[in-house]
């Protein structure tokens, strides 16, 4: 175990542990992500299971699959993928997230390869994956087409790309900016720039131009009565997710 910490200062480790606890506190700073997470995981796991013919009821359902989680943060998606038996790389452009995610994975007894890098750099290094998870990232990048092209390059032929983002319309402005950032204070003000949001048709178009073949899209819908998110075939008005394949 000592090798994992190597020469890291114990005070630093304590700090990362505290930050990991914050990432994983369902009522803390990342509450909105924790609320959305089961719904995101339902989509991701069923899409992967369908594409790679895996049985989610079986142990280690994703054994043998190499999965990349872009924008991994504290590891909220990377850890479940590793727990299902996948070989997981978590990438984050924010260097501070990496040791935090590492500490938590170690506490959870999971082996995950966390890296401070970008999709573009990994593509340049010829990394290849069966699945690329690209959740709530594309609305933050400056050149979505170049970014999605890098995501396609990271996939093996026949590989699966799952990409979620926010729609651009008056309702998403009201919900994601006014509601989530200003009224509920779920997210810090300025987290999102509404003009960067992408409509589902625009995203499908971008995916095709990046050389991916869109196969599915669904909405993540928040129900204020049950205070929970669910998947919807019809309502893609605010948060939505897509699945696309790299042609063989």
């Amino acid at each position: 175990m000592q090798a994992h910490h190597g020469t890291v200062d114990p005070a630093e480790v304590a700090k990362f542990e505290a930050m990991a606890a914050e990432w994983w506190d369902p009522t803390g700073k990342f509450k909105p992500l924790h609320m959305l997470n089961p719904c995101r995981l339902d989509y991701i796991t069923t899409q992967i299971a369908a594409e790679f013919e895996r049985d989610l009821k079986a142990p280690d359902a994703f054994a043998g699959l190499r999965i990349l989680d872009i924008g991994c943060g504290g590891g909220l998606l990377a850890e479940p993928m590793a727990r299902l038996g996948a070989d997981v790389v978590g990438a984050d452009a924010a260097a501070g997230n990496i040791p935090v995610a590492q500490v938590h994975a170690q506490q959870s007894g999971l082996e995950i390869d966390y890296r401070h890098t970008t999709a573009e750099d990994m593509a340049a290094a010829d990394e290849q994956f069966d699945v690329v998870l690209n959740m709530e990232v594309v609305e933050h990048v400056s050149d979505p087409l170049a970014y999605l092209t890098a995501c396609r390059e990271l996939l093996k032929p026949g590989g699966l790309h799952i990409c979620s983002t926010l729609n651009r319309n008056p309702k998403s402005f009201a919900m994601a900016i006014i509601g989530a950032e200003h009224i509920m204070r779920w997210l810090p003000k300025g987290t999102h720039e509404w003009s960067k949001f992408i409509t589902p048709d625009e995203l499908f178009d971008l995916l095709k131009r990046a050389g991916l073949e869109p196969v599915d899209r669904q909405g993540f819908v928040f129900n204020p009565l049950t205070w929970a998110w669910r998947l919807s075939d019809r309502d893609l008005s605010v948060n939505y997710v897509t699945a696309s394949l790299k042609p063989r």
Partner: protein
Amino acid sequence: MDNPCCALILDVMNTDTDIAVIGGGLNGPLLALAMASQGHRVTVIDATAQSVRKNAAFDGRSYAVALTSQRLLAGLGLWDQLADNAQAMLEIKVTDGRAGEGPSPFFMHFDHAEIEEGPMGYMVQDRHLRRALIDAMDASDHITQLSGHAVTGQRAHPAGITLTLDNGKLLTARLAVGADGRASGTAQRAGIKRIAWSYDQTALVCAIEHDLPHHGIAHQFFMPQGPLAILPLPGNVSSIVWSETDANARAFNALPDADYIDMLRPRFGDFLGDIRLTGKRWTYPLGLSLTTEMVADRVALIGDAAHGVHPIAGQGLNAGMRDIAALAEVLTDATRRGEDIGSVATLARYQEWRRFDNTALAMATNAFNRLFSNDNPILRIGRDIGMGVIGALPGLRRGAIREAAGLTGELPRLMQGKPL
């Protein structure tokens, strides 16, 4: 390994078991079997040595198993072993009464023929249920039984929990489930607070043989001293749950068997012919006990450990079974998503699902008991009219039948007769 942080990490990385269940009564083994069926490793820890509970003769204790609970038992593969010894409850008659008087002219009658799902439930003897649970646990490769050991300590980590046993051994798990009853040490050690009060009533429990057949009809008489339930068992045998004030119960319990039955006889008249005691006599002090939370970090509570209610509607075991079906579903769904089964994020879903239902049940049985357990003439007239109204309106009556069968609320898959 001199770095404490690393020692701690090592100790949770390879947990001894996935789920540690504290309590080997009815709820603990049921949850263990549900989770073992999904491939989890489960360790059931019980302070009582197992041999004490095996091969018992009929001891007078039995349970009203609601239709939805029967589905859970069937889903876990236990019903085949229980079916032959179970008695279907086809009708329930509820009457307001006073010892020595006939039933009030107003009464409620619920017949399973009014709902399409089948009987409202089954009566199952305690010994048969325990036997079926132990046999099923013995047959499971995924269940380890630690009988005769008490848990003396527990400590939650970021990704696991360590239990200390009374022999000094440590057991690590992803999740600890407290099925250790109203005095739950698991809840206490997790810092979960409890609200409890006594009803100053005691339930006298026994079984009787009677000359005339019961036709599968369950009776509930509301007596001023407390409710009396007569529940059908196979043959000409019925289970009696007879609630009395603490003072009366103490006096009756001190009587020899023949005098005890003489006290019981006038309380429900002669509609079953002559009655005789069979099996032992039991007493249970009645009280309400609710925890403020059903979960904590790495800990979930089920059954009486979270909510002990008045047995007025026979819903105690059934509420526990709903906990089990809901928790098993939440944990199974989390497992299939790759989530951590012991995290607060996962366990909070179980609490949200069950807490409202459990609190409502506790409050309803509390209110019912207070309304019916007295001889105030105004309340007596009021409840007679109320029962007359419910009895006369088919919609209300069907609602009450569905409630008794456990068919209301958001049903877990196991209680809909579906696989986990």
